[in-house]
């Protein structure tokens, strides 16, 4: 494996020494570009009681392109599909090398707090969400209880 760019080393050091509240990101021992991530569901959201697992991978041309991030925990959210893929502009068209792993993870946490059914990825969830928001929020809570790790 090619040497790890300084930027990735610095970002990793900071993630460990100065972690973002409610978010953990731990590099895998055998591939320092691969991170195991957990995100606490934001308070006052249907995900508030759960901790969600994600995986994050830094492609070879990072930071010229965005990290690849995916939910591993099943989640009912209009912008996250069955495979855990996330519809978020900064992960696609609005990526900038001025963003970092920590800002991306914060954006994902913010997305949990502010589902956006008008810019969907998981189409059926977004449809349900628009038809009956109250019911959708109930399902999101149920799924959180069922699949996410309980917050301590």
């Amino acid at each position, binding site marked *: 494996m090619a040497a790890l*760019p*300084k*930027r990735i080393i610095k970002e990793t050091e900071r993630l460990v020494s100065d972690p973002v509240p409610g978010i953990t990101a731990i590099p895998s021992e055998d591939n320092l570009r691969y991170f195991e991530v957990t995100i606490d569901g934001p308070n006052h959201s249907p995900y508030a009681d759960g901790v969600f697992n994600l995986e994050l991978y830094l492609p070879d041309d990072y*930071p010229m392109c965005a990290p690849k991030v995916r939910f591993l925990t099943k989640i009912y959210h209009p912008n996250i599909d069955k495979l855990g893929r996330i519809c978020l502009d900064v992960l696609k068209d609005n990526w*900038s*090398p001025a963003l970092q792993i920590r800002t991306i993870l914060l954006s994902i946490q913010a997305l949990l707090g502010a589902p956006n059914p008008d810019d969907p990825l998981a189409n059926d969830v977004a449809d349900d969400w628009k038809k009956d928001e109250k019911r959708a929020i109930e399902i999101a809570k149920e799924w959180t209880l069922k699949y996410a790790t309980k917050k301590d």
Partner: protein
Amino acid sequence: MKVKILEWKSFATWHWDLATSADDSGYVEELCGICRVSFDGTCPNCKYPGDDCPIVLGSGCTHNFHLHCILKWLEQESSKGLCPMCRQIFTFKEPEQTSDVLINLKTLIDGHRVMRERFQQGNEQEFEAFGADQDLQMA
């Protein structure tokens, strides 16, 4: 007493002379916003700091980058030619002096502009072709 100098070593330190850009907090940005290496060091692709790996300034905004870092970013389709920090169209500040180094730099920047113009034209064609494809599938 007579001292005979057998050998002597000289060394020097230097810094880039930068137009400092402070944000609201008064914090002066001394790291390249792309590779996050200090401007006294090179970009990740170069070994020796200095003329081969110069710092360039935006002319529309006040952001600084290693030349190699910003060129690499602007070559990405996804950059849309925008500054990574403020997302304005990034234009290079024309070097004022005309030393060899700066002439080289200007050649590089011009080359990049030509490349990008070509690149953007190519994109539009691709985009149209893509649209046509979709119509076919839907029919």
